[in-house]
């Protein structure tokens, strides 16, 4: 489904973020990418979303090289991918409802669908009571749950979670991981990057370890070693 084919990324300042990385991700897989800061985890995700271009190699999503897609096709591709970030990246000027509705509007959904799906997805992350609040009025855990609801609402094929628990306390971390697990059980591919050893050990799913831009380990049911 997703295939990185001998991908390298060298930034203009000559720093090597990724070097000759090859691996594939199957549909409905839950894959964790681990490694110390600067190992190339975020670069890997940016290359997948066509935010950055690789210096060499290709990134495929369902047979299509994402870096040869036109502007319109990139937009359509990104709508099939749900994004969750460490710093939440909610739209601060919009309410919880509008944050989620915006993603649906961008995907061209009708008003009826939006009015129906937004409360439903907020129910899933247990945030129905905060539907008209602005992000600044929410706690970190609540913000991350809004971000997850936003990532889910268009029923994406892939969810990318980039250090989603980095800013959260253990209770919220546990909640977020449980939600991601549930999403995966329902058939969505999940790509998770994290530093958190506890999460990896408790998941017992595939782990890809990166160090200095190279894959040093790829275990089917891995544990976190660093």
């Amino acid at each position, binding site marked *: 489904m997703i295939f990185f084919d001998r991908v390298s990324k060298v930034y203009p300042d000559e720093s090597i973020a990724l070097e000759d990385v090859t691996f594939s991700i199957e549909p409905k897989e839950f894959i964790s990418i681990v490694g110390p800061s600067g190992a190339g985890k975020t670069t890997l995700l940016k290359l997948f979303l066509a935010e950055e271009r690789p210096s060499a190699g290709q990134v495929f999503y369902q047979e299509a090289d994402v870096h040869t897609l036109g*502007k319109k096709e990139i937009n359509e591709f990104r*709508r099939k991918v749900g994004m969750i970030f460490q710093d939440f990246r909610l*739209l601060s000027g919009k309410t919880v409802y509008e944050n989620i509705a915006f*993603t649906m*509007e961008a995907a061209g959904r009708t008003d009826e669908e939006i009015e129906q799906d937004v409360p439903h997805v907020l129910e899933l992350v247990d945030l129905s009571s905060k539907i008209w609040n602005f992000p600044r009025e929410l706690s970190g855990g609540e913000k991350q749950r809004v971000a997850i609801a936003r990532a889910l609402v268009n029923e994406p094929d892939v969810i990318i979670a980039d250090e989603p628990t980095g800013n959260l306390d253990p209770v919220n971390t546990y909640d977020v991981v449980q939600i991601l697990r549930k999403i995966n059980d329902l058939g969505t591919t999940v790509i998770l990057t994290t530093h958190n050893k506890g999460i990896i050990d408790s998941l017992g799913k595939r782990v890809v370890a990166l160090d200095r831009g190279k894959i040093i380990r790829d275990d089917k049911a891995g544990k976190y070693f660093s």
Partner: protein
Amino acid sequence: MFFTKLRRVVRTGFFNFWRNGTVSLASVLVMMVTLVVIGMISFSSAILDTSLAELKNKIDINVTFVTTAPEEEILRIKQTLESLPEVFLVTYQTREEALAAFKDRHQNDPSILAALDELGENPLGAVLNIKARDPSQYASVANFLESDNTLSGSGVTIVDRINYFQNKVAIDKLTSIIAAADRLGFALTMFLAIISMLIAFNTIRLTIYIAKDEISVMRLVGASTTYIQGPFVVVGIIYGLFAGLLTLLLFLPITYWLSKVTANFFVGFNVFSYYLNHFLEIAFIILVSGTLIGALSSILAIRKYLKV
């Protein structure tokens, strides 16, 4: 789908304008400065145009006749003048009327009046006052009077003097001063307008800079360029319209106050009534400028952050 999108873009624009109250207020005020300057351009050119026209209107020729000139000769010349295509109006002032006007002018100067009494007879000649249709035609009228047309039956000229030749230099100078002031005023206001437009542009750019992280998030959830850009353009247009309306309101007290000052200065020109009479025209210029500056600034400023 197009109308749904348009409605969503406009609605989001209105929300963004309203929710960022402080930023919106600041932007509207900055934009107002620009629009006031643009409004001033039309006022100042109107003031200068009117004073130039007023000045042209003041130019005329006085032909003073010798005291012995017979009235029928003068009236004959008047008739000939009136038949000239360049001449707009000829007024005849008899010797007696000239004397009365002279006395009237110097009623506070007893020594002059005493000297007049001393003379015993009326020293003033009759006067023909000529207004041409256009100031440039005075030269040909004056030349006409200089020629043989003003000779009496006995072959002696009855014209004492023609003041055109004395006033010509002053008239030309004043005309060129006004024209130069017009050009300088226009250049200055254009300069100010460009500067204030740049400031307005920069202000809008800052408001978009604040939102640059959000723009990249919108990009990542797959929103199209027009869908991201649209609300910012709507906000820019709202800035322009709001600033335009406030500027039009502000011009009411300003021109009212100015009209008192300028009435003494530029005879016959009232800025306030000019504003009221040309309100639609000025409102159109101000509102269209505001809308265009707002929308274009937004489009130009946001392009930079849309590349992700």
